[in-house]
């Protein structure tokens, strides 16, 4: 009985791993626009195309969008001058942001121009726009995913509370039977 259970468990795990690999292999061909990965791996091939990126906003530095390492400008919003210079003065329909590509931070900073809304350093955005040759994206649409520098820490903190809540309520109703290695109804509850 336990052997059958183990076998079924292994089959399910293998199937799940199969989904991870299949998704990784085929998702690109199903997405509408090139994304972070394609831009980071073959920027020049996508110049002129409409792209969709997920970016973390960084302070604009003096020699903006020089590429290379992003770590110098790291942890956004470290000082007041950076924060104020992060967006260009025109915070209307034609603002500018410096972003790094999420999961591809080592690719360095890109400039998003023509944004109709901006997010301070430490926040993050999704952008659909046209990829230009000089590490620039001319924005068509900007979605502020994490509009504040505290947005992402907020989500993680709240989610941690959620995880604790699940464990607490679960083990009020269920207990682990060590001899059978199975969850059983808690009778003393």
């Amino acid at each position, binding site marked *: 009985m336990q052997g059958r259970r183990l076998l079924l468990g292994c089959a*399910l*795990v293998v199937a*799940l791993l199969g989904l991870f690999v299949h998704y990784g292999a085929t998702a690109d061909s199903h997405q509408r626009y090139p994304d972070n990965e394609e831009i980071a791996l073959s920027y020049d091939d996508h110049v002129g195309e409409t792209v969709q990126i997920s970016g973390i906003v960084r302070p604009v530095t003096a020699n903006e969008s020089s590429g290379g390492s992003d770590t110098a400008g790291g942890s956004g919003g470290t000082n007041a001058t950076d924060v104020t210079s992060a967006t260009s003065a025109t915070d209307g329909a034609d603002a500018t942001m410096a972003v790094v590509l999420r999961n591809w931070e080592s690719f360095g900073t890109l400039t998003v121009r023509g944004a109709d809304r901006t997010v301070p350093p430490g926040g993050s955005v999704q952008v659909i726009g046209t990829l230009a040759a000089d590490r620039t994206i001319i924005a068509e649409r900007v979605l502020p995913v994490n509009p504040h520098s505290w947005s992402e820490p907020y989500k993680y903190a709240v*989610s941690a509370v*959620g995880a604790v809540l699940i464990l607490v309520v679960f083990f009020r109703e*269920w207990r682990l039977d060590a001899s059978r290695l*199975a969850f*059983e*109804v808690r009778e003393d509850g």
Partner: protein
Amino acid sequence: MADLLSHVLAAYALFTLAGWRVDAVTGRWVVVAMGGAAIPDLSKVSIVVAPRTVEEVTGLPFSYAPFSTLGGVVLVAGIIALLFGDEYRRQAWGFLVAGGVTSLVVDGLRLSIDGRAGTLLYPLTWWGPPSPNLYLTSDPRVLGVTLVVAGAVFVLDWRRSAGTDSRPE
């Protein structure tokens, strides 16, 4: 996706309400559905081990995104259900899947830059349902709403069971 606490509270409210009409949905199964509601959030494992790292180590393409899809929910629910005693396994799987689907539906409602809810139905289809663009997860009002709703359900449920004592546990 909505934050994990909102997912869990939404599942709590929904399945507790369902329990008022359906006898099979007892408190012990509500908490299993709440656990199922967390399955789509497992894609955040990417914070601990980046998918790119997995790709570099194994040489295979890789993505955690299936956790947040129907296929991932069904399989992960199956794995977790195997941890339950024989007599509970089928029901556990059902409630885990139902809780996970609840979270997928909640996630399908959020703001999306291209108006699509993403590949929630993978591997059945890559098609993303249109999104009603209702909320942004980083907006604390999302949690505010789920807290108020879950709190109201909790109070009503407590008064209901205290008043009639009709729900066998």
